């Protein structure tokens, strides 16, 4: 099973994460945590002049190969899209991109979706877009 899980593309994104870093004075940001392992990811968004298109998006933090690779892929997917598009991005679209079987592994599914959830929370805080379904791992304070 690990051979399927640790495909070349996952390991590539893990070792060479795209969009890794911090955006100073970001227009939107949020910090997510996987309560299971204590992993944290922070996501920073800068909007284009229209205030809606995601011009740049970066992430920092540390985590397992699945969470880091998934977040790295997400950065590539989100760039250039609008806040509303990303806020309503179905998680299956990201999972398809990741392309490894996680259906029977709810624990690792949480790892894979940590970045997406955190990005949606960041957009919610900045733009009032809808929160993702089944939100967990965020303090209530964080959402205010």
């Amino acid at each position: 099973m690990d051979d399927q899980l640790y495909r070349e593309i996952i390991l590539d994104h893990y070792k060479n994460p795209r969009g890794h870093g911090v955006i100073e004075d970001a227009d939107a940001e949020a910090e997510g945590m996987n309560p299971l392992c204590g992993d944290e990811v922070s996501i920073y968004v800068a909007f284009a002049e229209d205030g809606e298109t995601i011009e740049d998006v970066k992430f920092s933090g540390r985590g397992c190969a699945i969470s880091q690779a998934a977040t790295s892929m997400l950065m590539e997917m989100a760039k250039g899209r609008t806040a509303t598009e990303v806020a309503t991005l179905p998680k299956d679209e990201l999972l398809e991109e990741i392309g490894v079987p996680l259906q029977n592994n709810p624990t690792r599914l949480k790892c894979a979706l940590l970045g997406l959830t955190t990005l949606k929370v960041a957009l919610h805080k900045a733009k009032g877009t809808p929160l993702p379904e089944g939100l967990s791992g965020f303090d209530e304070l964080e959402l205010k």
Partner: protein
Amino acid sequence: MAVTVGPKLDAYTLRGDFPIFEHSVHGQPLSYLDSASSSQKPRQVLDAMREFYETSYANVHRGVYDLAERATARYEAAREKVRALINAPSTAEVIFTRNVTEGLNLVAYAWGLDNLGPGDVAVVTELEHHANFVPWQQIAKRTGAEFRVIGIDDAGELRLDGLEEIAKAGRVQVVAANLVSNTLGTINPIDRLTAWAHEQGAIMVVDAAQAVPHRRVDVQALGVDFLGFTSHKLCGPTGAGALYGRRELLERMSPFEMGGEMIRKVTIEETTWNDLPYKFEAGTPAFVEAYGMGAAIDYITEVGLEAIEEHEHDLVGRAIERLSELDWVTVYGPPPNRRAGIVSFNVEGVHPHDVAQILDSQGVCVRASHHCTQPLMRRLGVTATARASFYLYSIPEEIDRLIDGLHKVRKVFA
């Protein structure tokens, strides 16, 4: 440390008592290295519980009919087994709980709320499981008491030289510590901590979840005031645990939960409480599980706690030796001669989740998490570790498979 008093245990033979080892995982033999989370169950315990349900089941207490009397007698016989295991003076001081967490919360609420206030200090250690950390942190906040933490050194051992400074924070009223760290396997000097606590006029509360299943624990010899442990880590079922409490303290405390067997008399105006230990057992208890815990105590006692301790000591020594040969693996915690059968480690450049996932495909079960010790993780400078832990059924071949698996991890992430 591990003193040889009896014959060594034969883990290969004991494994025959555990049906789980007849099963394979991903086509590989099961290497179960997660007993610090929960232990596997021998047939003797499973049979005892089944026999209870099939022949003697009815609710305990207040039953007049024979079946209820028999069920009650079994429940109380289990209490005596718990008492004998930890050498408590009386069964009145043995409270059945759901688990250690509930037992420790019982003390924090039922004792802490009435005995802590401004100027008082609650003390825990940096090695604590959240269950013995957070209740005291929160009760201190609610009562206005100070909260202090005994730090550790780089080997993961308590820095007792910091006690003097802690005592300056106010009147130390409670010291809470685990006997064995669930993350590092550190064996804490509970005798010295207890002596210090009592010098301060404080009570000593001990989380013995990782100790009672693996070594002889004597509450009178330790002199502690409260000590909790759980059934599912000592070959027994989930849902049962026990809390020892010193009688004078239990008598002065208000109940934790109310209703059921803990009641003596209720009127519209007033309620009085049942005698110990029932005052702290509200509602129908998990009495079949308590009985199963009794059967598990029989099982580990028959194997011999000294033999179990020695066996695990051998294994952890072997594991640390093999892990230390890998210069891409970091091992956390004290040297083998000062630790129980638990070893936390990390593989360079690989997250413990990924380590555990790849090990799983080799049939090797280790935990990858913060192990409910987030302050300790912060102290170690990590968010999580992989952890291997041993019990009476663990065999050296499982360590070999762990090491083989780690080489595979290294290969995948090369």
